């Protein structure tokens, strides 16, 4: 059996540094975003793109550890396509929304179209969960998805009575995806380091 190829394990501190850099980039990218006066749907890009990008970096790191895993490679590439598609469509939608009246049908479509890559993102995750040949990794991924879903439900359940009591403002539903990604990513890191 060929044992010549030995993937280089990614040092934990390097992985942590990359993750921290991506989360920290929020503070660098957002002012630049505002510098170009990008409003409307584009405003959603940063809070959604950063956790997605961090997830992608983590997956690429995992791919370096298991380079012969085709399911993981498809998962990583799928995430990249969805992420880039989302950002490109968001910028196009932003330009269209600014150029057309707010109540126009085209403007409405422009608001919805950027969400399509995010729906594809869910499909990419579902595909990975069914295709991952390594049963332990598959179990971890399912566990992480459950943590993400649990965190999202917990935040929603706590937020609802607080909102009714007018202690907090209306929930921003767009943050649901960010919360799910955060739960998924943090639990993935936890199991990776354990």
């Amino acid at each position, binding site marked *: 059996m060929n044992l010549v190829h030995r993937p280089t394990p990614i040092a934990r501190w390097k992985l942590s540094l990359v993750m921290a850099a991506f989360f920290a980039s929020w503070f660098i990218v957002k002012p630049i975003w505002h510098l170009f006066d990008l409003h409307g749907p584009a405003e959603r890009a940063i809070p959604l793109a950063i956790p997605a990008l961090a997830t992608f970096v983590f997956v690429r790191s995992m791919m370096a*550890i298991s380079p012969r895993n085709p399911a993981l490679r498809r998962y990583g590439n799928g995430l990249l396509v969805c992420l880039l598609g989302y950002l490109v469509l968001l910028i196009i939608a932003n330009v269209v929304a600014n150029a057309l009246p707010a109540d126009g049908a085209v403007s409405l479509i422009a608001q919805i179209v950027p969400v399509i890559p995010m729906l594809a993102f869910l499909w990419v995750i579902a595909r990975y969960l069914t295709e991952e040949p390594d*049963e*332990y990794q598959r*179990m971890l991924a399912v566990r992480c998805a459950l943590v993400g879903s649990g965190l999202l439900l917990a935040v929603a359940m706590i937020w609802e009575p607080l909102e009714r009591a007018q202690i907090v403002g209306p929930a921003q539903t767009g943050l649901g995806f960010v919360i799910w990604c955060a739960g998924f990513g943090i639990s993935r890191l936890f199991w990776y380091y354990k």
Partner: protein
Amino acid sequence: MNNCLKVLRAERGWSQQDLAERLDVSRQSVNAIETGRYDPSLPLAFRIADLFEMSIEAIFQRD
């Protein structure tokens, strides 16, 4: 469930990565099985048994 995977691996001078490549799983999976954090499925248990040319019950024992 207990197992003697670590001993069998050491007897052959294999690292966890070596065993993982032979079983076509990740090193983390081998580590999880060895430390008892994860019990493999029956198909994977058969692959492990075939690799070491032993029966499943000779490698995995009840608590």
